[in-house]
């Protein structure tokens, strides 16, 4: 197990390296140079020259890459071209918003999806099962931005309720923060819930058909013990894999939802960076989000190894 953990951690190093090279290379493909983009038409040749030297753009590409990565490893993602502020502290501030949204969204989706998935499996082909299947199919088919708009519209037209504007951090005012976050998290959760529901249902159905469940029932265990103690534990393994894979959809969904609900998260920072042609910001944010994504996948993989003792990782 320990060897597996170490090997798995070592495995992400080439991926991280590849990701950073890809991001760097793609940023270099941008037509027109970054400096002209930042200065617009007004920049004089001297100013342009000064900025080129300041950002190290006069050096060869591999030197630029190494400088960038060395900076990143020290928590220095460079400065924004627009505000001249360092990018990293801003990114961390915004990451707390995205993280809160993602975690709340994930929790909401589990609370909705896992019990419903179990119910559907234990009541196969009954009313509740049909409801869950339709609900799950709708859930996978509705894009997060469409659901956000429907929810906002519905609340506004029917209850004249408008989601409070302006963001307040959890540590400043937890109540107000949750008021602001609940609606976006709910939307995010629902759009993820569909596939977890399907996976819970099918993996539960599969486990319930196995011989050991018959044995458990035959020895007289109650239905509750059978389901929760014996079946669920086994059914959880594919569910956890799926949950890990969905972190990407959650983070991606968060990018869009932040935009709709005007939450100052990483996704919004990335999009603003793109719209303002603030390339160091885009570069930093994309790298950071990819890093988080890889890290969470690593954690799910390790969790998976921990929960499923049948698999040996040698």
């Amino acid at each position: 197990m320990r060897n597996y953990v170490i090997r798995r951690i070592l495995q992400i190093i080439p991926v991280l390296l590849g990701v950073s090279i890809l991001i760097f290379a793609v940023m270099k493909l941008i037509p027109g140079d970054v400096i002209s983009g930042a200065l617009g038409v007004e920049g004089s040749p001297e100013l342009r020259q000064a900025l080129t030297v300041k950002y190290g753009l006069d050096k060869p590409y591999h030197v630029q890459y190494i400088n960038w990565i060395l900076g990143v490893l020290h928590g220095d993602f460079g400065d924004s071209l627009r505000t001249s502020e360092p990018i990293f502290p801003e990114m961390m501030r915004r990451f707390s918003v995205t993280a809160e949204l993602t975690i709340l969204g994930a929790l909401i989706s589990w609370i909705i999806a896992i019990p419903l998935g179990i119910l559907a499996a234990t009541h196969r082909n009954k009313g509740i099962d049909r409801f869950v299947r339709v609900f799950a199919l709708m859930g996978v088919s509705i894009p997060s931005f469409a659901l956000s708009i429907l929810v906002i519209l519905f609340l506004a037209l029917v209850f004249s309720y408008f989601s409070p504007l302006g963001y307040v951090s959890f540590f400043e005012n937890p109540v107000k923060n949750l008021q602001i976050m609940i609606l976006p998290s709910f939307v995010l959760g629902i759009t993820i819930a569909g596939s977890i529901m399907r996976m819970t249902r099918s993996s539960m159905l599969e486990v319930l058909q196995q011989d050991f469940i018959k044995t458990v029932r035959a020895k007289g265990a109650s239905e509750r013990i059978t389901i929760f103690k014996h079946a669920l534990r086994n059914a959880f393994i594919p569910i956890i894999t799926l949950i890990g894979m969905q972190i990407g959809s959650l983070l991606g969904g968060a990018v869009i939802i932040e935009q709709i609900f005007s939450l100052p998260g990483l996704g919004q920072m990335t999009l603003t960076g793109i719209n303002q042609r603030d390339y160091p910001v885009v570069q930093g944010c994309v790298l950071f989000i990819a890093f988080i994504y890889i890290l969470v996948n690593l954690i799910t993989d390790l969790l998976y190894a921990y929960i499923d003792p049948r698999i040996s990782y040698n």
Partner: protein
Amino acid sequence: MKGLRQVFRELVKDPMGRIGLIGVLLLILLAVFAPLLAHYSPEKMVSMPKAAPNQQFWFGTDNYGRDIYSRILYGARVSLEVGLISVGIAASIGFILGIIAGYFEGRIDRIIMCIMDILFAFPSILLAIFITAVLGRGIENTMIAIGIVNIPVFVRTVRASVISAKGLEYVQNAKSIGVKTFPLLMRHIAPNTIAPFTVQATLALSSAILTEASMSFLGLGIQPPDPSWGSMLSEARAFMEQAPWMVIFPILFIVITILIFNILGDSLRDVLDPKLKT
């Protein structure tokens, strides 16, 4: 291996398969005959702004007085076009890379899969956004971006089935009597990839359409005045309380389109790959 006709027959027998097939067919008809079915040009102002749905303007009009029904029809064209072409890009590149990686294994396999792992290390919408940030906006670049994002799933699917097909006895036999690599790949190994490949392609279509809508909604995909459901929604957001029809109809069509592709993909999977039946 089931023949095309048998797959079709089984698909029609399944009620969900029927819904999916008919839905997709209707959608294609809507898109192809959009110029005939539309009442007005999608970009022309034909009435007062924000007219509610009525007999003349079935879905109402938008903030510029353009007919929403006509825009929805032309939007179906954009959605399908982007979906088909981007999945076409992803599927053909993914197929070739998957066959190469699966058949030759060794170093080339490791290189291909390493690149795929790198592409997989991004949330897909983020990667698509990042690529368009570099390529620029507009319909072609959106297709390329969504195409690139979808390559890895095809490589993985094809590679896995090539590796399992390589072990099959008849493939071994063909190899031992001296069938050359290329005919062996095309005639004996590739057919084994068709089932998972088709299922993957259908599901990729629905996710490509979803990604296009999301990107256009964010203002990074199809640019106004081109009618895309996503960009229609993003324009409509500011007026949605006064003119809810401006958001309701695009949402309805986005959801229905993704839904029918998902339904078709699910029942196709049940028919082609009964092992995976859920």
